[in-house]
C-alpha cells in the first residue's frame, strides 16, 4: 500500500477553494476597504434604533425606572413596515448570540450541541417579539427631560424616524443660524425634510430599507435564476432552447421601465412588493451564468456517477451540480445588491418607491426636486449614502471576481 495514513496532505494542497479566494481577495486594498464599509453599513442598519430614536433607553421618573425603547424594540408602534423592523431587531439580537454560542461550544468542545443551542436561543429570542404588545407611547420624554421632570439615557440622536414638527426644511443647524432665531431647541446635523423630520435619522433608518431591498430582491432574483438556469443547463435540448429564449426575451425588456409599469398598477407599495418586483425582473443574468456552469459541470464523470447510482434528476441538480456551479453567482450577487439599491432609490425618487412615511434615501432626494439649489442638504446628504453604498458593493464584487478568476490569480 502506498499510502501513509499518518501523514496529512501538505498545507498548500489542503487549502480550500474559499481559503484561496479569501487570500486573493484580501490582497486588494480597495476590496478590503469595500468589505469594511459593507460591514459598517450592516452595523448602521442593524443598530438604527439604538443610534437614533426619540424614546430613551432608560427613563427614571419619580423614582420609577422604565425602559421605553425596549418595548419599541420588540413591538414597533409607529413603523408602517413592522415585519422589516422586527426582523432587523431580531437579527440584531440573534447574530451576536450565534457568534457567542459558536465560540463557547468551540471552547468547551461540545460542537454537537451547537445546532440545538442555536435553535433554543432563536426560540427564546423570538418569544419577546410575540409576547410584547404594541402600545402607542406618546410621552414626550425629551421635553420632560428638558423640563427636569425625569432623567433618561437617550440614543445617540434623540429623534425618531417618524417624528415630525421640527420645522419644515430647516438647513443643517451648524450651517445656518436658525437655532439662534429661537424657534427651535433641537440640533439637526443634516437638517430636516419637508415634513419636519430629521434627515440624519431618516438616513440611518433608510439604510435598513436599502439593505433589505438589496439583499432580499437579489435573493429572490438568484433563486429564480438558479432554478431556471439549472433546469435549462441540465436537461438541455428543447427545454434549454425554450428557457434560453425566455431568458433572452426577458433581457430585452428595459427592466427599470418594466418595474415602473408594474408598480404603477399595484395597489400597495410595501417593501415586500417592491422587493418582489425587482427580484422577479432581474434574474436573467444569474440564470445565464448558472446555465453555463451547469452545462460545463454536467459532462464530468461525477454527475454520470451520481445518476448511475440511482439519484434522480432533481437530486443530481440540487445536491451535486449546484454546489459546484454556485461560486460565480456570488459575484453577481454583490453587483446585484448594488443595482437593486440603486433601483429602489430611483423608484423612490420618482415617487414609486416604498409608501411614506417609511424612510428611504430616494424619497429624501425626491423632496429636493423642487429646488435642489436651495434645499441642497436634501440632495447631498441622502445622495452620498446611495453613491457610497453602490460603490462599496461594486468594489467588493470586483475584488471577488478577480479573486475567483484563475487567470488573474497570482502565484501563491
Amino acid at each position, binding site marked *: 500500500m502506498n499510502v501513509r495514513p499518518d501523514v496529512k496532505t501538505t498545507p498548500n494542497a489542503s487549502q480550500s477553494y474559499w481559503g484561496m479566494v479569501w487570500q486573493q481577495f484580501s490582497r486588494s486594498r480597495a476590496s478590503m476597504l469595500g468589505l469594511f464599509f459593507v460591514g459598517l453599513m450592516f452595523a448602521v442598519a442593524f443598530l438604527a434604533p439604538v443610534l437614533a430614536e426619540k424614546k430613551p433607553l432608560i427613563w427614571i421618573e419619580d423614582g420609577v425606572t422604565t425602559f421605553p425603547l425596549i418595548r419599541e424594540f420588540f413591538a414597533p408602534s409607529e413603523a408602517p413596515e413592522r415585519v422589516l423592523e422586527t426582523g432587523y431587531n431580531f437579527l440584531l439580537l440573534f447574530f451576536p448570540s450565534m457568534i457567542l454560542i459558536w465560540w463557547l461550544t468551540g471552547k468547551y468542545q461540545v460542537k454537537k450541541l451547537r445546532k440545538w443551542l442555536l435553535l433554543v436561543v432563536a426560540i427564546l429570542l423570538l418569544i419577546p417579539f410575540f409576547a410584547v404588545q404594541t402600545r402607542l407611547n406618546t410621552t414626550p420624554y425629551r421635553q420632560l427631560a428638558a423640563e427636569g421632570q425625569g432623567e433618561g439615557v437617550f440614543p445617540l440622536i434623540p429623534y425618531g424616524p417618524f417624528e415630525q414638527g421640527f420645522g419644515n426644511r430647516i438647513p443643517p443647524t451648524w450651517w445656518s443660524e436658525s437655532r439662534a432665531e429661537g424657534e427651535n431647541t433641537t440640533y439637526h446635523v443634516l437638517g430636516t425634510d419637508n415634513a419636519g423630520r430629521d434627515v440624519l435619522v431618516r438616513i440611518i433608518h433608510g439604510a435598513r430599507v436599502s439593505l433589505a431591498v438589496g439583499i432580499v430582491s437579489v435573493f429572490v432574483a438568484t433563486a429564480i435564476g438558479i432554478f431556471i438556469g439549472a433546469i435549462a443547463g441540465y436537461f438541455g435540448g428543447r427545454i434549454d432552447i425554450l428557457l434560453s429564449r425566455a431568458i433572452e426575451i426577458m433581457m430585452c425588456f428595459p427592466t427599470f421601465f418594466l418595474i415602473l409599469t408594474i408598480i404603477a398598477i399595484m395597489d400597495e407599495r410595501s417593501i415586500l412588493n417592491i422587493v418582489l418586483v425587482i427580484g422577479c425582473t432581474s434574474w436573467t443574468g444569474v440564470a445565464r451564468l448558472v446555465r453555463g456552469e451547469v452545462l460545463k459541470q454536467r459532462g464530468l464523470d461525477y454527475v454520470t456517477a451520481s445518476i448511475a447510482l*440511482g439519484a*434522480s434528476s432533481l437530486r443530481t441538480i440540487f445536491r451535486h451540480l449546484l454546489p459546484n456551479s454556485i461560486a460565480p453567482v456570488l459575484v453577481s450577487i454583490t453587483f446585484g445588491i448594488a443595482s437593486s439599491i440603486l433601483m429602489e432609490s430611483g423608484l423612490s425618487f420618482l415617487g414609486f418607491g416604498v409608501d411614506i412615511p417609511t424612510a428611504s434615501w430616494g424619497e429624501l432626494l425626491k423632496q429636493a426636486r423642487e429646488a435642489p439649489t436651495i434645499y441642497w442638504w436634501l440632495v447631498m446628504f441622502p445622495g452620498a449614502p446611495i453613491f457610497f453604498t453602490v460603490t462599496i458593493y461594486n468594489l467588493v464584487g470586483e475584488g471577488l471576481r478577480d479573486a475567483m478568476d484563475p487567470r488573474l490569480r497570482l502565484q501563491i
Partner: protein
Amino acid sequence: MLLEVKNLSVQFGEGPRAARAVNNVSLSIDAGETVALVGESGCGKSVTGLSLMRLIETPPGRITSGEICLAGQDLLRIPLKDMRKIRGSEIAMIFQEPMTSFNPVYTIGDQLIETVLLHEKTTLQQAHARAEDLLTEVGIPAPGERMRQYPHELSGGMKQRAMIAMGLLCNPQLLLADEPTTALDVTVQAQILDLLRELQARHNMAVLLITHDLAVVAETVKRVYVMYASEIVEHAKVEELFREPLHPYTTGLFKCLPKLGGRREELHVIPGSVPNPSDFPSGCHFHPRCPLAKPICSQESPLLEEKRPGRLCACHLVEKVAAKV
C-alpha cells in the same frame, strides 16, 4: 442468464448524418461471470456500457432498437422511476477517471452514505458502518479517516478503490467497469484488477469489463467480445481467443502487442483509423483496413456466425469448421 442484450442499436443525432455508435450488438453475461468488451477508442464500447444503464443522453443520443434483459426484465421498457431503483442496487458502474468521478464538494463518506440511503431504509449509523466496512474491504487503510476526507485528498488509486466500494454498497448483481484502470499507473492497475477479481468471487457478482487493453483481458475475464466500429466482430473464450484469433481485426490487435523476449522489431500497426460512425464503409466495416479484403467484403455485411464450436465471428473469409466428432 443474468443479462442478455439483444440487437442493441444506439445512434446520436437524426437523419442520414446520424452517428450510429452501436449496431446490432448482442451479448450475454451469466450471474457471477466476468466478461470483457474489447475495442479501440471510438468503437462504441463505452456507449454500449452506458446504454445498459440507460445513461445515454437523450437528445442527442437514442437507443433505436434492441432489448436489455436483466433477470428477464427488459430495462428499455420499464419506467424511469423503476430504472432509478435498479441503478446502483442491481447494476453499478465505475468509471475511467477516478479524478472526476467523485463530487469535489462532499467528503467520501458523505457520498458513500448518500448512496446507501438512496436505496435502503437504514439509519445513518448503519449506513456509515456499511460504508466503512466496504472501504476496509477494498483495501483502504484507516477508512474512518478517509471518510472524512474530500476527494482531492486521496490518490488516484485510492479514489478508484473508493469508487469500487461505492459501486458495491448495495450488493449489485452486475458491475460495469468502464476502463477502470486506464487512468492509473501499471502497478496500481494490477492491484485494482486483483481487487475486482477478488470482490467478484466474494460477492458472486457479474462483471462487464470494458477495456482496450488485451493484457487486462487475459488476466481477468472468462469470455471476450471484440468490438469494431459499432459492431461485435468476434466472441470467444479468452484462452481460445489468445490461441487463435479468427477475425483479421483481432489478429491485427494481437500483432500490435509487443512480445516479451522476442526479437526487437517495429511494432505492427493496423493501417488507417477507426471510421467515422456517421459514415461507415459499406459491407464489412473493417474492409478498408483489412489486409485480406476481397471484393465481397465491400459489398456484403458479414453475419456474426458460429465459425468454430462456441465461437462467433463476423467475417466472410473465415471458414466454418464444424465440431470434430
